[in-house]
């Protein structure tokens, strides 16, 4: 362990709060909202890897890998949704997207 676990947890929670701020304030742009989700998932991955290093168990790294696979699935679906909705409404404002159904 190169640094105490507490410092890693501090870094992870700062990153998580930054991602949360990004998600909550960028309601006018759905791309920035997805970026905020990426930042929060990275903070979670940092916590898993730090715990794996602290206790010498490989499980934390396995879960970090699963978060990564989950993120790539989520991003591909979310960006396909963004392309679809932009084709219909010509905007990326989240407040404009209230229904998926064609009227």
């Amino acid at each position, binding site marked *: 362990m*190169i*640094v*105490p*676990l507490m*410092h*890693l*947890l*501090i*870094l992870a*929670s*700062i*990153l998580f*709060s*930054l*991602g*949360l701020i*990004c998600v*909550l*304030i*960028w*309601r*006018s*742009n759905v*791309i*920035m909202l*997805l*970026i*905020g989700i*990426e*930042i929060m998932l*990275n903070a979670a*991955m*940092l916590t898993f*890897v730090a715990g*794996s*290093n*602290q206790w*010498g*168990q*490989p499980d934390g*790294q*396995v879960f*970090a*890998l*699963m978060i*990564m*696979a*989950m*993120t*790539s*699935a989520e*991003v*591909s*679906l979310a960006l*396909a*949704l*963004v*392309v679809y909705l*932009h084709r219909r409404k010509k905007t*990326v404002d989240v407040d404009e997207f209230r229904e998926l159904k064609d009227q």
Partner: protein
Amino acid sequence: MEQTLFYILATVTVIATLFAISEKHPVHAIVYLVTSFFALAIVFYLLAAPLIAMFEMIIYAGAVMVLFLFVIMMLDLGSPEDAKRPSLMHCLPALVLSGIILASLALLVSTRSATIATATHVVGVKEFCVALFGRYGVAIEIISMQLLFAVVGALYLGRRRKS
């Protein structure tokens, strides 16, 4: 040496993320975020997780961010001069929630009990792979099915409609 490197990389990560979330232009935000992910990948390497560090670089900074850039350029969102800045009303819940997180963190730091005993042995790549494909083999199958469903869903959403 490693400690100094860690603190430098942590500072780079936080500052790059700060720039990324305050940037109005999505392409600039993506580039700042790639910087942040590279720094975080080296932090993972310092934490004795070389495979996770490589995957962070290849999948996050490589694939996911390029996918974002691709969608931004395809939808022509690269000129956001008419995009509106978030107002103070929108910032208020974000500031309150992050204040709660940081206050609980400060409470945790100030009332910390004795330090936890650190494990002596380091997780190697071999041990990681044995755990991944042995104990978590079913989870790998489920993850692959999830990726397949994501592909099918993306193809369904992205298809051209006739009208």
